[in-house]
């Protein structure tokens, strides 16, 4: 679905569901995942449908992932970090609603 105009210059290594991913320093987790061909970031709590980043600017919350054990983080506003371990999440209803 996406490609990079040029290879990352300053590489950052991370994983998604255990799979190695090379990202560009400074970019968001969502951008790194999309560039690596990963489009299903989470499943919705209600119907279980897959979701991918929609707005990339922190408004839609469709990019929620688990990063290093912490759930409900917005992949599009979280910068990549060396060694980061990202997992897709089935957003737990209660977690989501604790703050709503």
């Amino acid at each position, binding site marked *: *679905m*996406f*490609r*990079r*105009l*040029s290879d990352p*210059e300053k590489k950052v290594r991370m994983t998604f569901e255990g799979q190695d991913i090379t990202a*560009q320093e*400074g*970019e*968001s987790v969502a*951008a*790194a995942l*999309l*560039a690596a061909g990963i*489009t*299903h970031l989470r499943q*919705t709590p*209600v*119907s279980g*449908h*897959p*979701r*991918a*980043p*929609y*707005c*990339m*600017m*922190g*408004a*839609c*919350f*469709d990019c*929620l992932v688990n990063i290093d054990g*912490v759930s*409900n983080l917005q992949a*599009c*506003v979280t*910068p990549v970090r060396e060694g980061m371990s990202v997992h897709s999440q089935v957003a737990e209803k209660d977690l*989501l*609603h*604790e*703050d*709503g």
Partner: protein
Amino acid sequence: MKTVDLAIVGAGPAGMVAASEARGHGLSVAVLDEQEAPGGQIYRAVEAVAAQAPERLALLGEDYAHGRRLAENFRVSGAEHIDRALVWQLEPNGLWYLRDEVCHELKANRILLASGAIERPVPIPGWTRPGVMTAGGVQILLKSSGVVPDGRVVLAGNGPLLYLLAAQLLAAGCRIGALVETVPYARYLEAVPHLPAALGSGYLSKGVRLLRHLRSSGTRIYRNARDLRVEGEQHAEALCFHAGGHEVRLDSDLIVLHEGVIPNQQLTRALGCVHRWDDGQKCFRPETDEWGNTSVEDVLTVGDGAGIGGALAAEHAGRLAALEVARSLGYLQTRERDRLSTSSRRQLNKLLQGRRFLEVLYAPPEERQSPPDETLVCRCEEVTAGQVRTAVRTGCTGPNQVKAFTRCGMGPCQGRMCGNTVSAIVAETQGITMEECGYYRIRPPIKPIPLAALAAAEVDCELDDVAQ
């Protein structure tokens, strides 16, 4: 705790110019932004792109490169830039922000909200599927990461940003399968009376150039498209619509939707500012005077967050707000404020008049205000337009009741994606105006704040208040 004269939320064109201007008159200024660098939406990552990827700077166009100068002026202005700071709660003379997983408080004599716009949600059946993104989202991938769409790409909707993205993608060597315009033919006639003002503003010549470029690239253009819908179960497979008397189905790997931008109302709503429905712009906007003062004392708002005027208008409005704050804090006499504001005031008015043409031509089509029953309007809680209608027919009289009854708008996005649509459906079903219908009540925090971050804050704050 530190107190600044002026705290500005948002380092886009409005916030950057306001900060530079206010510093010029001697005010102490702090600018907070969720992003890592100044620029806002239009000039996102402009400093990094200019320094590290000159080819990308060129393909993004000269309007984008203009942001470099604003960022430079801002950097040397002496305003404190608090980057990666999410402002989640406002009080009349202070605010709370989350930075590096810790909450901080900042006190300010005046607060200027320059938090910009979000893209108007485009609720069509299937818009929640992976493989559907907004034009702004695709543009952010290009600006920030040099990542571009690959495969069969379809752009659908209307508005300057959609055409701009098309031109930028073409310049980046992408192929665009088709551009599907959702402008009803009648809109062209309605827009004609506003043409003269648009001619003077520069918007039009830019638009015509973009369109010509698109056509000469061989991109297939469909006009007057209706009944848009995305097909595909796990991933978007095709965009289907009605145009020119035919049912069209375009196989696509990526469907890019856009129908303009609307003010990001979260902060002004959470603070309790009065908002009005703007029927010209088809959005709610905070009520302000000509300087940006809101209905809440000591709080101003300018830029696209206060009503859509575009990036150049945001600069002028930012300058005017800074002059007003300087006056109200005694750094400037009223007379000086007025004298210094004449040029920006004149240019702002001209830019806003020029926009009327765009507002009429690119008003969202009726079907977006009244989506088919099966459309998910609330992406978080997966509530359909049909469920909202049923709730209204069975007695819910306003958006907040619909929310309580259906959970629509209760998810983590706090109604950003469904708010306008739900108000539109309630208004239509009840036969009332948008102004009468109103909008969700928005309470702070405007984004879910991890409890650990609150606990780490070096202040006593009522957990109940913020993490209800």
